[in-house]
C-alpha cells in the first residue's frame, strides 16, 4: 500500500518537472548577476521551455501552466501583469497545434520552428509593452535578446531532452 502511494507520489513529482523547471528558469533570469548587460541580454528560457514541453510532452505543459509561468514572470519583472502570461499561452497553443511538424523530425526543423515562434512572441511582447506604456521601445535590445535565445536553444533543448529521457519516458 505504502509502495503504491510512494510510487504515485513519485510519478506526481515527475509530472511537475516541466513546469517546475520552467519556473526555476524564470527565477534564474532575475538573479542579480552584478552586470547590467547580463540582466538585459539574459535568454528568455521560458520561451524555450514552454515550446519544448508543448511539443515533446504536451500533457505536462497545459495552457494553464503556461499562463501561470508567464504570470510569475510578469509579477517578478515588473512588466505589465498578464503580458507574458498571454504570450506564453499563445506560444503553447501554437506549439501544441504544430507539434506534428516537429516530433520525429530532424533537430533543425524544431530549431527553425522555435526561432519563428519565439520571434512572433517577442514582437508581441514588444508591441504589448509599447502600447501599455504608450511609447515606442527601442527594438534593438529585443532583437539581440531574441538572437541570444535562439542561439542557446540547441543547448537547452539538449538538456531538457536528456531530463525527459531520464525521468519521463
Amino acid at each position: 500500500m505504502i509502495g503504491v502511494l510512494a510510487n504515485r507520489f513519485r510519478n506526481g513529482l515527475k509530472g511537475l518537472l516541466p513546469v517546475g523547471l520552467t519556473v526555476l528558469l524564470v527565477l534564474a533570469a532575475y538573479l542579480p548577476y552584478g552586470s547590467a548587460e547580463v540582466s538585459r541580454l539574459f535568454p528568455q528560457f521560458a520561451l524555450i521551455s514552454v515550446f519544448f514541453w508543448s511539443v515533446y510532452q504536451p500533457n505536462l505543459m497545459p495552457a494553464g501552466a503556461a499562463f501561470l509561468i508567464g504570470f510569475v514572470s510578469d509579477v517578478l519583472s515588473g512588466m505589465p501583469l498578464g503580458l507574458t502570461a498571454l504570450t506564453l499561452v499563445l506560444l503553447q497553443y501554437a506549439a501544441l497545434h504544430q507539434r506534428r511538424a516537429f516530433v520525429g523530425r530532424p533537430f533543425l526543423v524544431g530549431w527553425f520552428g522555435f526561432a519563428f515562434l519565439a520571434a512572433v512572441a517577442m514582437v508581441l511582447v514588444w508591441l504589448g509593452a509599447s502600447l501599455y506604456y504608450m511609447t515606442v521601445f527601442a527594438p534593438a535590445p529585443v532583437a539581440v535578446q531574441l538572437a541570444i535565445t535562439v542561439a542557446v536553444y540547441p543547448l537547452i533543448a539538449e538538456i531538457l531532452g536528456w531530463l525527459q529521457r531520464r525521468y519521463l519516458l
Partner: protein
Amino acid sequence: MPTRAAVQRSAYLLLISAALVLLVLGRSDNEAVSRFRTAVTDLLAPVFAVMSEPVRHANELTRAGEDLWYTYRDNARLRQDIERLSSWQLIARKLEQENAVLRAQLNLRPEPQPFYITARVIADTGGAFVRTLVVSAGSRDGVLPGQAALSGAGLIGRITSVGYRSSRLLLLSDLNSRVPVVVEGSRIRGVLAGDNTDRPRLIYLPATAQVSPGDRIVTSGHGGVFPPGLPIGTVVHVNKGEIRVQPFVDWDRLEYATLLRYELPRLGDGLSRDGR
C-alpha cells in the same frame, strides 16, 4: 471528439481573457493588482535570497581577481588621489567650522538627520522594458514608498512598492522615473527622465538655460520626495536640446542599496524639537 475540442477552446478563451483583464486592470493602476504583485514578490524574496547567494560569491570571486590584477596600477592612482584629497580635506575642515559658526549666528534650524537602511539587491529585473531591482528590506525594516535609494556614489532610484521583507526599487533609468534636479553650479532646475537607457535625459529646462558637459546634477528637493543635494551624475552629452546625464552609480557593481528615510521639515517642527 468535438466536445473535448470545445472544452479546450473555451479554456484558451478563458486564459486569454484573464490575461487581457489583468492588463486592463494594471493599466488603470488598480490598487489590488499592485498589492498582489508586492505580496507575491515578498513571498518569493527568500527564494531569491537563497538563489542569489552562489551568484554573489561568484561575483565576489571575479572581482577579487580583477582587483588583484590591477593592484599595481590602482595603487599608483590612489597615491595621487590621497595627495589631492588631503588638501581638499583641509579646506573642508575649515569650511565646516566656518559653516557651524555662521549657522549658530543665524540661529538656523538644522536639517533633519536622515536615517539610513542598507539593503541587499536580491533580484535584478532590468530588461528591455522595465528597470527595477528587488531589495531585501521591507516594512519590517522601516522602508516606506518614495524613499530615495543610493549606492556609494549617488542616487540610483526610489522605492515604489514595499512588502514585509522586500521592496521594489525603480531605477533612474526606468521609463517611469522622473526626478526633480538642479544643475549644481548654475542652480538651473529641471527634471531627470529615464528612457530605458543607461543615460537618462535632462528635460523641462528653461529655454535660456546653458548646460554643458561636465556639469554636476543633484536632486533639487522639489516635490518633497528626495532631500536636496543628493549627487546624481554629470552631463555628458548636449545636442540640440537633448541633454544626457551619466549617473555616478556603477550599474555593474550594484550589490547594496542605501535607502534614505527623509522627512520634509514641517512648520513647527523646530518648536517640538527644542521642547524635547
